């Protein structure tokens, strides 16, 4: 399956991004990594261009919330993204925050899988389960 990934906004924390790239490849995905400092349009453009099945966004510096609000509106402008699996993970709030508050919020933005401060491998296992479930 094809995955577009990257780090959203003015965030230059690249370490998790590199690990995600490696781990996705190790799990057999075809990966299009846009790297750090990537804006929402760039993500959707890449999904269209590559015909990706999954969009996996990282945010480490807590700024994702500001971008999250715009996801639905922007996605609606593109066509054929109905079956796109949308996933986000990393540090999804500034300062400390609770997963039970954060997850519903991001789900309402249109994300299928929300991984606040969840370890990468756990997150990718969740993704695999989700794909299996959906195709079953």
């Amino acid at each position, binding site marked *: 399956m094809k995955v577009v990934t990257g780090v959203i906004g*003015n965030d*230059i*924390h*690249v*370490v998790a991004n*590199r*690990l995600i790239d*490696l*781990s996705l490849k*190790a799990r057999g995905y075809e990966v299009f990594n846009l*790297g*750090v*400092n990537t804006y929402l349009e760039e993500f959707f453009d890449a999904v269209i261009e590559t015909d990706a099945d999954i969009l996996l966004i990282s945010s480490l510096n*807590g700024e994702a919330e500001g971008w999250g609000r715009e996801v639905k509106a922007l996605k609606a402008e593109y066509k054929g993204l109905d079956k796109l699996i949308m996933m986000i993970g990393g540090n999804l709030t*500034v*300062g*400390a925050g609770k997963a039970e508050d954060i997850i519903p919020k991001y789900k309402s933005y249109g994300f299928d899988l929300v991984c606040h401060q969840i370890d*990468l491998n756990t997150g990718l296992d969740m993704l695999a389960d989700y794909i299996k479930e959906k195709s079953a």
Partner: protein
Amino acid sequence: MSLLQEEREIILGNQYVEAFDFAEVEDFVKNANKELFISHHFKHSNKMLVQPRGGFPTYKKQFALYEFFVNANVDVLPLTIDSNTRLNDYKTAARMLRLSEENDVDMLNGYPLVNHGYRTTRNMITHFNKPVSLRHGTPDARLLIEQAIASGIFDIEGGPITYLLPYSKNFPLDKAFLYWKYVERVCANYSQLNEPINRESFGPLTATLVPPAITIVIQLLEMLLSLEEGVKSFSVSFAQQGSMMQDIVTGHVLKKLARHYAEEIGCGDASIHLVYHQWMGAFPMDPNYAEQLISIATVIASMVRADKIITKTNQEAAGIPTKEANSETVANTQYSLRILNGLPDITDEQEEEILTAEVMAIMEAVFNDPADTLWRKVFNCIKSGIIDVPFSPHIINHNQMITIRDDNKNIRIIKRGKVPIPDHCFDYEKAQCDLSKDTTSIVNDIIHDIGIMQ
């Protein structure tokens, strides 16, 4: 009028800057209290200087932060600049500063020095009468540095490489070199009036599996670029790497080669200092553990015989630390330094030899680049991958070098990419690691190694 002076007048003519009185500033620097100069403290203090991190938008909050730090017995105060100022967006900074002042909420993640202006800022700095270190991350810091020095800030962190490769995806590297050349010259000129202005390089880089050879090469190059413009006091730095012995060896080689290359270019009269950063990589979530990590970093800094230590807090993994957490770290670090007695003076000869050979080989490759000036040589070498910083987000960086940790947690190079690591060194590095594993295991090792302090 010199070209530099012409450029300065243009830069300082910026609409967001209060009228800059060159003569008055010169006069201020000439007569400034020696206590404000970190170079003066380096000369006369026989203890490791302790410096925290921290910056707030409003004057009031920054002042309060300094009061906390002074109570905690700080040696060097930090002034961390907000990210709008770092991107030269003084307009946004002005707006956010106003909002912060009116609503008592922090709308900026640092102190917008240009908007506050040097007259105001100088009041605060001369009030506390402690050396202040400017911490930013600005590729074009020309205006910022002018204001900083005019305010009484005589310790300037950064450099064209260390403030770019870890912090930026696509700011043009060649421009960064030119903008920093201006900074070096301004610092050099002011250095003739009183004690020297100190420049400091940012050794931690990405704080993630950077091998000491790369760290040292970049430290040496930024130092040379600075000294060749006439700077007389320079701090090379690096951050805790994860192995006490590797830190000690790194400290030795860095000091030794800094001296060596400074003399090589005829700048042996400059004084060179060593700065150690408490762990800069991924922190444990548990604040108790973070506390141990910081405390152990202080022990290692002492073993390394650093001249200054830059602290972290036990809140690092959670978010931006409070002033309370920040000043607690200062007091704790000072206490630790007081009780660290009878530290042995040691090294590992073989490790020193290997590391020295690696650094000198890369330096030679840089010097052999056909370009006419040092900054162009360095530019070319970064572009061609002769200098390659693991986990740099910058598009110009090659990202071909791969490092992992050996059994003693030393960072080892297992793929050198285009970096001219000599064969015998490369063989030594690889021989320390178990490379018989498959790729997946090695990737898992890398992930593990990034998180070793967690």
